[in-house]
């Protein structure tokens, strides 16, 4: 009997757990260790942050799902990984009691998502700083409360400054911030308060609409349209100002300090700010046979787990080398160790990094969206199924092959809401396969805005929660 341990029950870990439980759970031991006893449907936290969705509608309990699909649940936070053959185990701390938990494994899936590195920007974040975040459910709830308090001030006639975007020069997840700024705009419009707010998009992207993926390009009537023009139209239409090519360095009460591509430094004042922090890997300790720290053999300096990618290539070379992106998400030193979702180390950025004259680097990190994380979770699970059954891992999908669809909400109303539907193939440009300057399939890639998007976003909330609960027919729903 093989023992498989999955750390984390988010988009990547939950996908892996469902595939592993349903395929191996009866004969083998599949265990999920998660520091939360619920699954959180992260994309809908955008709506929680403006008070349009109840927090409890975005979560469900994990244990009842696992009981149906033969997965054991351990409610604990993983702390240490001991990967040396012969004695491989995960050490955790049980939530509530703090008791140590030891989970031996034959196969390990590391999928704990990001560490939200608020400490990387002094003054950032809701706990020890002055800005808000929608990257965790408690943060989204806190953001909602602060936003609604701001609305009350506006109702009394006060004019306010709202800043939304990225809070670190190397931050990712611009898509979530874009959804939040659009939802705030739409909400204020509906409340008749839009004229009371000056809204600014502040981001580290090289250009508007870059989203950390070098933008999206689509061909329409023979003309290539870029997401930069599209998002510019969206912002002009909404009266949202923008400032890109900017790295936030520090935040004080009501003041954001930044530096831009030209090397200029400046201060932006705010009454309410939602800025995405830098993402790092979860700070697990990787311990060798003699108790020594072997983290540097397994994770990169940011704490992401190195897998079967080609690391260390300069951007110019990486952008021409699609095969540098990992295919199986398998650690080269420990082949029974996989990393899925945000936890795996990408070989480099997708968007062009920039260093300004002061040697200050401004470079969006590559996003690993929900769809990408789910796909990786599936690839990893199916490869473990192969290995448990004595076969070579036969599943692979590089981000230079993956298609990604993203529906960016711009108001949740099913009557007059809107969303931008974004489809891109591949997520990471493959300039060998697609011989255009963008390295993408311009026919499949798609950008469209309208009410249909709002319907899709609503539908995705329900279909994905259905899938993550492993309810009948879940296999038919793509990641």
């Amino acid at each position, binding site marked *: 009997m093989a023992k498989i341990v999955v750390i984390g029950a988010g988009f990547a870990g939950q996908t892996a757990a469902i595939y592993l439980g349903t395929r191996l759970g009866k004969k083998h031991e599949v265990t999920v260790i998660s520091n939360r006893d619920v699954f959180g449907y992260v994309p809908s936290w955008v709506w929680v942050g403006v008070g349009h969705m109840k927090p409890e509608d975005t979560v469900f309990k994990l244990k009842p799902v696992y009981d149906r699909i033969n997965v054991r649940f351990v409610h604990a936070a993983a702390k240490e990984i001991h990967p040396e053959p012969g004695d491989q185990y995960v050490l955790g701390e049980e939530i509530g009691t703090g008791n140590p938990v030891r989970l031996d494994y034959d196969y390990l899936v590391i999928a704990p998502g990001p560490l939200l590195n608020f400490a990387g920007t002094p003054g950032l974040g809701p706990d020890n700083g002055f800005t808000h975040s929608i990257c965790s459910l408690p943060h989204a709830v806190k953001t909602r409360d602060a936003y609604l308090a701001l609305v009350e001030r506006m109702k009394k006639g006060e004019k306010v400054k709202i800043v939304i975007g990225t809070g670190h020069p190397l931050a990712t997840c611009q898509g979530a911030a874009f959804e939040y700024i659009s939802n705030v705009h739409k909400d204020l419009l509906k409340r008749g308060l839009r004229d009371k707010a000056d809204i600014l998009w502040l981001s580290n992207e090289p250009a508007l609409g870059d989203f950390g993926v070098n933008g999206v390009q689509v061909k329409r009537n023979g003309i290539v*349209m870029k997401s930069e*023009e*599209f998002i*510019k*139209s*969206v912002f*002009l*239409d909404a009266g949202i100002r923008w400032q890109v090519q900017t790295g936030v360095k520090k935040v004080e009460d009501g003041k954001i300090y930044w530096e831009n591509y030209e090397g200029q430094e400046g201060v932006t004042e705010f009454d309410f700010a939602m800025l995405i922090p830098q993402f790092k890997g979860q700070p697990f300790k990787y311990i060798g046979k003699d108790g020594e720290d072997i983290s540097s053999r397994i994770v990169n300096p940011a704490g992401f787990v190195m897998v079967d990618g080609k690391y260390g290539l300069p951007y110019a070379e990486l952008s021409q080398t699609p095969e540098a992106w990992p295919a199986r998400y398998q650690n080269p030193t420990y082949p029974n160790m996989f990393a899925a979702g945000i936890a795996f180390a990408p070989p480099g950025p997708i968007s062009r990094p920039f260093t300004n004259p002061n040697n200050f680097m401004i470079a969006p990190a590559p996003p690993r969206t929900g*769809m990408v994380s789910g*796909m990786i979770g*599936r*690839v990893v699970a199916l490869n473990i199924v192969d290995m448990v059954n004595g076969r070579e891992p036969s*599943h*692979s*999908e590089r981000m230079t*092959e*993956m*298609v990604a*669809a993203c529906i960016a909400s711009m108001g949740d109303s099913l009557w*007059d809401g*809107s969303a931008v*539907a974004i*489809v891109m*193939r591949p997520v990471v440009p493959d300039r060998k396969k697609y011989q255009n300057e963008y390295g993408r399939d311009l026919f*499949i890639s*798609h950008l*469209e*805005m*309208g*009410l*249909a*998007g709002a*319907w*899709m976003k609503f539908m995705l909330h329900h279909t994905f929660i259905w899938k993550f609960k492993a309810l009948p027919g879940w296999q038919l729903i*793509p*990641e």
Partner: protein
Amino acid sequence: MTEQQFSRAEKFWMNFKLYQLWRFIVLNIKIYTIAVQSKWK
């Protein structure tokens, strides 16, 4: 579409329910067919 704000016609189509129902069907089919291919990798 230009680099400027969306035109009145574009905005009309973005919220014209019948047209949007059509787009909803088309987008779902498009996204489902390309996303489901990944399942077999």
